[in-house]
């Protein structure tokens, strides 16, 4: 059923839309030409634009790929015939004519690289070269060479300024690199460790069973061995929820050896999220916190509930205890890193979660003195870049 009025209407709508788009784009182009400003403003703009786009290419340091792109813009700034960027060993990029001089450039630049001073040399019959060192900190990391028929004072000054500007970009790149290293080191340092108290207490608890219940003592030693093997493993910053839960089970078994029936734990795990990838030892400290600070200080039995839920594209893990709770103000200062002592395990996990998944994935802690504590952790199920 060809619905002719509808088709006509649709066709008209499409034409009107097309005309509107063409007119809109045209107006924009015309206006941008009109608003370009005076010659001086335009020159300033072009210089800054060339510098900023060259700067972007140099932000990863002196590499062939970035230098090749940057040299195009930099040559337009100097207005010379050819421009080259070298590091201390080889020519990284060449833009412009006379590429046959590439072979001799490192020879010409040797003096510049060793005593860090700008020189003017004649590179061939027609071309002179201004070679300026790139000084990052107090080292020479490379050189900028500009080739022109006449190398006047203007070109010399401009070239050494340019080399200094490149040096700033290289220093920024080094800063970036060290910041990345710092973050990695921080994550490594934050990787949770088992508390020495726990090891001491567990061994004591096991010792008390050796005479009264040797079978149980033997079983506990095996659990302890397995627990430490997992917790002390060196490889990998990530694990699966299933793996972490198994370690928590061993941990709780050891704690129960100490506390007996005072610790009661129930689990509610959605099987869908068991294979979710989480940071290594990110749950165990939360459970340890619940046992240590929630129940230990309390009289009578305490109850811990561990839940893992499927929540859309996320897995949600909650750990709840009915212990003494935490003073919110104190907790806030611990999480902000202002106070030490209790609950540093929480801060550690919180910081790592934020580091890995972003600020919106930090721990959510609901607590009040005497009211117990509920800790919620939310991680994306999809983490193709993390190997468990």
């Amino acid at each position: 059923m060809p619905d002719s009025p509808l088709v006509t209407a649709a066709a008209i709508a499409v034409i009107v839309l097309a005309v509107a788009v063409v007119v809109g784009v045209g107006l924009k182009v015309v206006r941008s030409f009109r608003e370009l400003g005076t010659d001086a403003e335009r020159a300033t703009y072009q210089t800054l634009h060339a510098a900023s786009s060259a700067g972007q290419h140099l932000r990863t340091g002196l590499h062939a790929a970035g230098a090749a792109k940057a040299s195009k813009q930099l040559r337009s700034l100097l207005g010379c015939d050819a421009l080259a960027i070298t590091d201390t060993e080889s020519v990284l990029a060449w833009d412009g004519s006379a590429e046959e001089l590439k072979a001799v450039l490192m020879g010409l630049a040797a003096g510049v690289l060793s005593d860090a001073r700008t020189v003017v040399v004649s590179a061939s019959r027609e071309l002179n070269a201004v070679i300026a060192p790139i000084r990052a900190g107090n080292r020479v990391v490379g050189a900028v060479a500009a080739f022109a028929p006449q190398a006047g004072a203007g070109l010399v000054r401009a070239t050494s300024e340019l080399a200094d500007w490149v040096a700033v970009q290289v220093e920024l790149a080094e800063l970036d690199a060290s910041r990345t290293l710092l973050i990695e080191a921080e994550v490594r340092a934050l990787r949770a460790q088992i508390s020495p108290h726990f090891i001491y207490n567990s061994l004591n608890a096991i010792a008390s069973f050796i005479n009264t219940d040797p079978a149980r003592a033997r079983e506990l030693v095996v659990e302890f061995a397995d627990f430490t093997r997992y917790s002390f493993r060196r490889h990998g910053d990530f694990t699966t929820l299933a793996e972490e839960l198994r370690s928590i089970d061993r941990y709780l078994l050891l704690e129960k050896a100490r506390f007996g029936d005072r610790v009661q734990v129930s689990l509610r795990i959605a099987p869908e999220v068991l294979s979710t990838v989480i940071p290594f030892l990110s749950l165990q400290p939360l459970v340890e916190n619940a046992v240590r600070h929630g129940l230990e200080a309390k009289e009578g039995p305490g109850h811990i509930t561990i839940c893992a839920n499927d929540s859309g594209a996320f897995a949600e893990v909650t750990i709840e205890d009915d212990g003494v709770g935490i003073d919110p103000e104190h907790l806030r200062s611990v999480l902000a890193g202002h106070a030490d002592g209790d609950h540093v395990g929480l801060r550690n996990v919180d910081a790592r979660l934020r580091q890995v998944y972003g600020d919106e994935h930090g721990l959510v802690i609901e607590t009040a003195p005497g009211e117990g504590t509920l800790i919620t952790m939310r991680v994306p199920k999809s983490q193709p870049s993390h190997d468990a």
Partner: protein
Amino acid sequence: MNPAVGLAAFLGVALATAAIGFYGLRISRTTGDFYVASRTVRPWWNASAIGGEYLSAASFLGVAGLILLTGTDALWFPVGYTAGYLMLLLFVAAPLRRSGAYTIPDFTEARLQSKAVRRVTSLVVVAVGWLYIVPQLHGAGLTIRISTGLPSWVGSIAVIVVVCLTVVAGGMRSITFVQAFQYWLKLTALAVPVVFLLMHQADAGMPALADASSNPTGLPAAGLYQTVSLLVALLFGTLGLPHVLVRFYTNPDGQSARRTTLIVLGLLSVFYLFPTASGLLGRVFAPELARNGQPDALVLLLPGKLLGGVPGDLLSALVVAGAFAAFLSTTSGLVVSLAGVISQDLLGGSVRGFRVAALLAAVVPLSFSFTTDSTALAGSVGLVFAFTASTICPVLLLGIWWRGLSDTGAIAGMLTGAVLCGGALVASTFMGSSVAPGWLAQPAAWTVPAAFGVMILVSRATKHRIPGTVTRLMTRLHVPERPLASERPLATKRQLR
């Protein structure tokens, strides 16, 4: 049919779904049975869940309707719907599970290291999901009209309301069990009436069922091109269905993803026996339904027509319950996976964002369903498969099996497939099904190769854009992984005892 019976069946299914969804996980366990508490979903359960999610209105109502209309030609639909899982088993299930990506946009972004590819994939996935929900709502409208006499829109809205309430209230916590329950409910709801009817007819002296290839309706038979094109659509379309692929994430590893797929193949094969049998019964006992334009209602009307009285009412109630299980399970599966994609790409992935996205994912197709008309259900779902096969399938297959795929190639291929296939479908809808030429009405046979071709050619031309991470990711996709902690035997303990 007695209206009260239909309403009771619908309410029963809705309540059972919500109850399992909310309370399926309420069983708390102590650490004593830790290994029971942290047991992963068995392949059997997950396969039932995939079957539950996959068997939609098209399978439950549409297949029988098409067999009533066109006879044996319609058998290609169940064959294609099932055989698609063979492709999934061979090419996609295990590597996709190993990728660690939860949705198709996640996968393409990780594989091609490009935000732009992610955005295009998300758009396509949302389009596919919306298009797939619309026939479910048409099916719901039809069922409510036939079973209670209420207007069609009541059915569509009822399904959307139930789905939104359960998803938004967090009722899909134990989604695997809900969907697995729906599969067995659907199977029972089709199998029991068919077996009863066959037994009843055998007692009453059955007229010959044999000559199924005869064509009582006088409609033209489909040509070879149509059949090939349909099979291409169904085989490749299954590979890209967002709600089915999400389910594989429930499997703990690639190996169990494969085993699950194998079981799904078996479950689907068993299921499709019964719509086929219903269709054949319909050819003999209710050929008038084909003429008055209600072939899709065949499954619903057959028990009342052949048995009547209280047994007929009870069987009808069972069928209505099964039909609503089909609409609810497919729609909620789609809404959950669409909400995941929408909330991540548009709303920042918060809990609130997920709820808003779930509403968005459900309400948009509802408005589509009001403005469009219900045609043959199996056919319109087949068209969604054609669209999926021309867009998502190439990027998945090439992404998993070809190192040379580049982000530009992936985008170009997906857009080509979307424009060609979408254009053909819109054009043939405008022209009307009787006027449109076959190549326009069943476009998959040429749009799928076109999408693959463009994707490969553009990728070859943009070799420099192949990401440097490709080797690492390919290794991850294809090398078997360690089993999960809760699956490994406790070696040390066993030695001790």
